């Protein structure tokens, strides 16, 4: 594994761990309004200073990771469960059902995801769970199409035929040889991309306002918009959420390196 991939994985694990655990500890410091210390720079008491309501920026930064960590994982689980079994089974069996499924994936992949998300949020209400579900579902065609294409290409391979001749059941060949061995890394890369998509989606929605995580609950998006214009762009209160966003997104790309295709020969 490359160093880049290790760094990427370490950053992602740290961000997700903070995101999942920070609501237990950072909650109070992140939400407590103290006008007398508003807009301060970094100090030993407040490592990244305070925002213009006097809330601790570092605590808010941590709590904001919770805005996407849990829901992002939920979105990945939804896409995984809905796309992979359907794509794998229909691609392996082929025939009319296979062609229809592929047609469905290709057609649905054409729907603009951002518009779909906004539409669903305005109908079913704006909550993290709804956002996670719709983000996961909107990614199903992409993941399904990728898995379908690969399994359709490999199902006629000599080793699949040989496995059949050894008496392995279709389910076992599909799971062991085709899904796990041949698509595992592909699926992993897609899930990282989906996690990144969810982060961008949540940040964008809460930056624009009206959707996504709302004040006073912090997200990296609403932290940026909240301090924007009130201080220099190099101030930690603005710089920190921006950098955290960039670092986490970059980390999804770095981590994907660990899931590159194995080159033989």
């Amino acid at each position, binding site marked *: 594994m490359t160093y880049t991939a290790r760094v990427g994985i370490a950053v992602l694990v740290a961000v997700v761990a903070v995101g999942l655990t920070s609501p237990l500890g950072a909650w109070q410091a992140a939400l407590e309004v103290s006008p007398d210390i508003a807009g301060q720079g970094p100090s030993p008491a407040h490592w990244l200073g305070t925002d213009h309501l006097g809330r601790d920026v570092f605590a808010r930064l941590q709590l904001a990771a919770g805005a996407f960590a849990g829901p992002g994982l939920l979105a990945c689980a939804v896409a995984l469960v809905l796309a992979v079994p359907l794509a794998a089974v229909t691609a392996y069996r082929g025939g009319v059902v296979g062609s229809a499924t592929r047609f469905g994936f290709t057609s649905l992949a054409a729907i603009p995801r951002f518009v779909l998300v906004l539409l669903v949020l305005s109908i079913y209400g704006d909550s993290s769970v709804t956002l996670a579900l719709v983000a996961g579902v909107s990614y199903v065609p992409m993941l399904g199409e990728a898995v379908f294409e690969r399994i359709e290409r490999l199902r006629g391979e000599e080793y699949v035929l040989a496995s059949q001749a*050894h008496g*392995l059941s279709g389910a076992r060949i599909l799971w062991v040889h085709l899904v796990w*061995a041949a698509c595992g890394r592909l699926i992993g890369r897609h899930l990282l991309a989906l996690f990144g998509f969810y982060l961008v989606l949540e940040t964008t929605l809460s930056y624009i306002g009206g959707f996504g995580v709302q004040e006073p609950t912090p997200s990296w998006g609403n932290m940026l918009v909240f301090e924007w214009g009130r201080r220099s762009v190099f101030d930690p209160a603005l710089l920190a959420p921006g950098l955290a966003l960039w670092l986490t997104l970059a980390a999804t790309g770095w981590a994907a390196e660990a899931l590159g295709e194995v080159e033989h020969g």
Partner: protein
Amino acid sequence: MADSLQLSALKIEAGSQTLVTGVDLQLARGEICALVGPSGSGKSLTARAMLGLVEIAPGVTRGTLEVMIDGTIHSPEMTGDSRARRKAFAKVRGAVIGYLPQDAMSALDPLRTVGRQVALTARRAGRDQGPTHWLNLAGLQPSVANRYPHELSGGMAQRVTIAQALARGSHFLLADEPTTGLDPAIRRPLLDELRRVADEGVGVLWITHDLRAITGIANRVLVMSEGQIVESTTPDQLAGGEVESSAARRLIEATRRIAAGRLG
């Protein structure tokens, strides 16, 4: 009655074309029957039909296959629709009739270590011994278990497929040109391995081009041409050129030309 495999009146059609017709074939446990013939004569297709793996369209394969094992007759329906055929052959494949592929390298999953692949086959057969046991029986070092197929030579890869066949414990084995494309120096040990497998009670149908290798390995020889079995003979008769069919004569002539260094 002794364990045996009986294929009768096999016919395979693709559209208006008849690929294989009227093929009858018996195989007893412990013998190696060589199936020779020019490319495209239907040898591999016959073997695949015996595993229910010819799926051009439903109804194109006709004939009967009966395998007698310990008094039980397995007779998978060859003609039925693909779902019924799949079910029937699922019981026969591997457990009763095994398969040794032509190109071992492409018959192994490139993304799994060979140890895991052999273990998978052994587990399917309900056997406890680990992969190194079977690799060892096929003449490979235990360390091979941790390698991926691309890290093996052609001969080693073919030995891995033999290990898979041994782990599967099939009563009959269809070996589809298992030594084609291999160095002559490793061909002989592999064929000796095949002979040893047969001596332990496995009936082997050995599809081959290599007429010179047949003596000392095969018990009898079937010659196939244009989708039909045209002659049944013995290795000695074949080696002595005492054959009746023109297909067999052409094969012998071609083999002699190659041996004399006059190709074509």
